[in-house]
């Protein structure tokens, strides 16, 4: 008997079940990817975020008056402005001292080893993996002074986790187990490592509604985890987003999303609290909680709560009318808002706006293809502009603004670090093509002077 492979393959694929490909999810995921393709956020694993938002109609209906940006030139923000081009070159030995580095030659071929953050006592959370059929991950605490690794016992989970706390007593890594994978929402889990007992415990909360895997929980100064339960999701305008001068969908001035704020105890699975707040993004300092009204879209209100007295006030941060809030953080009495504010004939309008907790405009870092977040007591800025690419550091207290590197790796690497530390990454090797990632990456850990 003769069996023809071509015929067998066609027979095998000849009778598919009903097609459940969701083109609405494709469109919404594509729009989100376009919008956020340059916006990376610190995290332990290589970031591959396919966001799913409420989708509009499948078919564009044409102009709705928003087809072109209001002006062809990037507008100037309110208040003092610093351009990315004004940063000076940081110098090793003057601005920072490198403590450790680690290179993975080809992360496009296989997972490697990563610096996932730094503990409060200065040890690197070193991750090996995931590897193997079961996606096993090993963690060690690496002493950057000696290079010695203390391998931790197995966590017993293959979840994709994000560090929430790297303390001297415990490590807290969180994950979200998607229910069906459709909207990346699911049950929150915390993996808590007791450093003295050298043991892991996994905590889940039956009373906590599903959370979204797109936003990491935030640890409050009270030791509780604060998490957002999806409340409202913005949708594209009728007819879809207008096309910007660069040919990409331009969703500047989007409606934005909100979340209901809940908090949970890391030691008591029954301790679940609805905070009774609808928020956009949330951040903490030692004695304040700050939150935006919306995130991933326009935001015109920042709220500040004094955690000692309970007093609250709010203000308009005077962000641009087309600014989508994409990143949010707090540092002492400063609030940091990373925003995308539209694309114009002369480039993207990306801003990192820094305001005081009283609403005073401190400064806005403006550039084409930049984002920023609070880490290690400074604002770490990433620039993806070909001519000014790399990692920058801005100190809100002193105004020092310095460029640390001249290129970014193709991967979302890093994690939380204590004040005074800086973690960044640079590319290694050459991309195989214009759409391909640069295969390797070096992570650098430094003390910022």
């Amino acid at each position, binding site marked *: *008997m003769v*069996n023809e*492979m071509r015929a*067998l393959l066609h027979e095998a694929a000849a009778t598919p079940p009903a097609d459940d*490909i969701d*083109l609405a999810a494709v469109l919404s995921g*594509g729009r989100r990817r376009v919008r956020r393709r340059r916006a990376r956020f610190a995290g332990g694993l290589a970031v591959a975020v396919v966001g799913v938002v409420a989708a509009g109609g499948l078919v564009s209906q044409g102009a709705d008056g928003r*087809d072109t940006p209001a002006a062809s030139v990037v507008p100037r923000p309110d208040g003092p402005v610093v351009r990315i081009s004004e940063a000076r070159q940081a110098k090793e030995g003057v601005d920072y001292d490198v403590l450790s580095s680690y290179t993975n030659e080809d992360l496009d071929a296989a997972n490697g080893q990563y610096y996932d953050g730094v503990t409060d006592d200065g040890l690197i959370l070193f991750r090996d993996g995931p590897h193997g059929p079961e*996606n096993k991950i090993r963690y060690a605490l690496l002493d950057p002074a000696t290079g010695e690794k203390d391998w931790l016992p197995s966590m017993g989970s293959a979840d994709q986790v994000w560090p929430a706390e790297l303390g001297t007593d415990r490590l807290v890594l969180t994950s979200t187990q998607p229910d069906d994978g459709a909207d990346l929402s699911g049950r929150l889990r915390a993996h808590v490592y007791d450093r003295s007992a050298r043991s892991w415990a996994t905590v889940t909360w039956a009373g906590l509604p599903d959370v979204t895997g797109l936003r990491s929980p935030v640890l409050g100064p009270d030791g509780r985890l604060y998490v957002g339960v999806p409340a409202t999701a913005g949708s594209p305008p009728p007819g879809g987003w207008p096309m910007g001068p660069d040919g*990409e969908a331009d969703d500047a001035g989007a409606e934005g999303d909100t979340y209901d704020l809940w908090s949970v105890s890391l030691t008591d699975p029954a301790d679940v609290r609805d905070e009774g707040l609808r928020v956009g993004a949330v951040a903490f300092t030692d004695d304040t909680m700050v939150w935006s009204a919306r995130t991933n879209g326009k935001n015109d209100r920042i709220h500040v709560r004094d955690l000692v007295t309970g007093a609250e006030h709010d203000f308009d941060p005077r962000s641009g009318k087309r600014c989508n809030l994409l990143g949010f953080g707090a540092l002492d009495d400063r609030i940091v808002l990373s925003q995308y504010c539209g694309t114009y004939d002369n480039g993207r309008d990306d801003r990192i706006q820094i305001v005081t907790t009283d609403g005073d405009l401190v400064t806005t870092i403006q550039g084409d293809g930049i984002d920023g977040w609070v880490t290690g007591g400074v604002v770490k800025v990433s620039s993806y502009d070909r001519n000014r690419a790399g990692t920058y550091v801005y100190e809100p207290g002193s105004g020092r603004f310095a460029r640390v590197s001249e290129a970014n790796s193709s991967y979302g690497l890093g994690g939380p670090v204590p004040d005074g530390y800086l973690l960044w990454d640079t590319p290694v090797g050459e991309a195989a093509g214009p759409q391909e990632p640069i295969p390797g990456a070096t992570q650098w850990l430094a003390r910022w002077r």
Partner: protein
Amino acid sequence: MRDEDEFVAFAQGARDRLRRTAYLMCGDWERAADHVQDALIRVYVAWPRLTRAGREYAYARRALVSVVLDHARRRSSTELVVEADPGRPADLDIAELVSARATLLQVMAELPPRQRACVVLRYFDDLSVADTARALGCSEGTVKSQTARALDRLRSVFEDSSLGELTLGSGKW
């Protein structure tokens, strides 16, 4: 306005063909739909460039191959890629298999992901060696060697069974 009408028309026209390719690469219709969805998102992002260049489907197929291989890599790290050994005794209980088609799919499921992709692209999508290399992002030599290994394995299983000979069948290449 970003031309979503054209993208939607393309996606509606391409989804079925892409889904069949994805199914043969991953062996699961549901996962195939997920892979196609992910690949179409990548196509959406690149759409303004693609429509000018007129290479939409080739890009979509390349994106799909990338998504499938990425997924396979995450499921089983490529640090230790275990090549199927054509000489080892087959794990398959041939007696239990009722058809040549089922046998083919089961043996393909045991192939390393790149070998399997080579077989699907060469003999289902009927791509040339050069086009398969472009879709996989590798050299033509790699396509030839990976395909040859896959065919060795598939043929040896058929020869050791009562199903008879496995030939390639007629195609363009």
